[in-house]
């Protein structure tokens, strides 16, 4: 760890009032943190542990939180770091969707092809909308970790490039490139799923 001033060396004694304030402000983010933790760890048990540990660490460092700054981003930073430093090691990356060949995937072109087949402009957004939540979540969960986390933080949670770069301690350009590649891979995976589910016009069984 970095050198710290004497303040951080002794464990701060937290009062019941501070606990109350922390709970009032921080606990509202449990659904977001738990959702992200599920996507990261792929396991409800690990996700629960990760979120619990995140709150414990956050509370212990509560005195370091700058009031008025983005509390959700601060909590996500703790969650993400904790996941990367401790939980990730426990996990084997499963057989992943290959992303090497998704670089050139073009969702717009694929959907344009669809809308020609159905002669309906609105088909463009509806095709992927027809996928059930579980399919969409699973496709995100199956992405390689770097892409998965970038999309979680940017698209799902709406953090800025700068916030994500700070959380992951990587350059903004890397954030952008992971996002870009991750989105393409996810789009390709979802279109693949849509085809499997018979949601695409002119392929397989058609939803009547």
């Amino acid at each position, binding site marked *: 760890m970095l050198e710290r001033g004497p303040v951080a060396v002794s464990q701060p004694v937290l009062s019941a009032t501070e606990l109350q304030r922390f709970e009032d402000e921080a606990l509202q983010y449990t*659904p977001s943190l738990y959702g992200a933790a599920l996507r990261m760890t792929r396991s409800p048990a690990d996700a629960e542990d990760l979120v619990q540990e995140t709150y414990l660490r956050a*509370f212990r460092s509560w005195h370091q939180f700058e009031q008025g700054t983005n509390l959700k981003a601060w909590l996500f930073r703790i969650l993400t770091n904790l996941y990367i430093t401790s939980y990730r090691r426990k996990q084997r990356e499963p057989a992943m969707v290959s992303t090497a060949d998704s670089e050139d995937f073009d969702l717009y072109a694929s959907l344009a092809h669809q809308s020609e087949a159905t002669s309906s402009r609105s088909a463009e957004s509806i095709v992927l909308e027809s996928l059930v939540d579980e399919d969409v979540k699973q496709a995100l969960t199956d992405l390689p970790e770097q892409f998965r986390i970038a999309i979680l933080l940017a698209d799902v949670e709406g953090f*800025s490039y700068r916030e994500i770069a700070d959380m992951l301690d990587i350059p903004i350009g890397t954030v952008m490139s992971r996002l870009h590649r991750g989105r393409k891979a996810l789009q390709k995976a979802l279109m693949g799923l849509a085809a499997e589910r018979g949601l695409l016009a002119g392929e397989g069984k058609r939803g009547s």
Partner: protein
Amino acid sequence: VGREHQEGHDDCSELIANLFLFLDGELGESTCADLKEHLHRCHGCLERFGVERAFKDLIQRRCSQEPVPAVLIERIRLTLRSQVL
């Protein structure tokens, strides 16, 4: 990228490069105005933008937040309480 241009705009690919920045709210004000102006004029780019926005929106709606098990909230509260004198 540029095969849908109707009026022979030569600025499509340049502006489209900014499309993701725009979508992510990361585009500076003046470039933002240029892009909006272009989307106004160019149907192909507007459609592409619509598709990417619909996708981002889909991921956001379908993957954000999860119902938190009551037992987890309880565990968190207990853990936090153990830190207080």
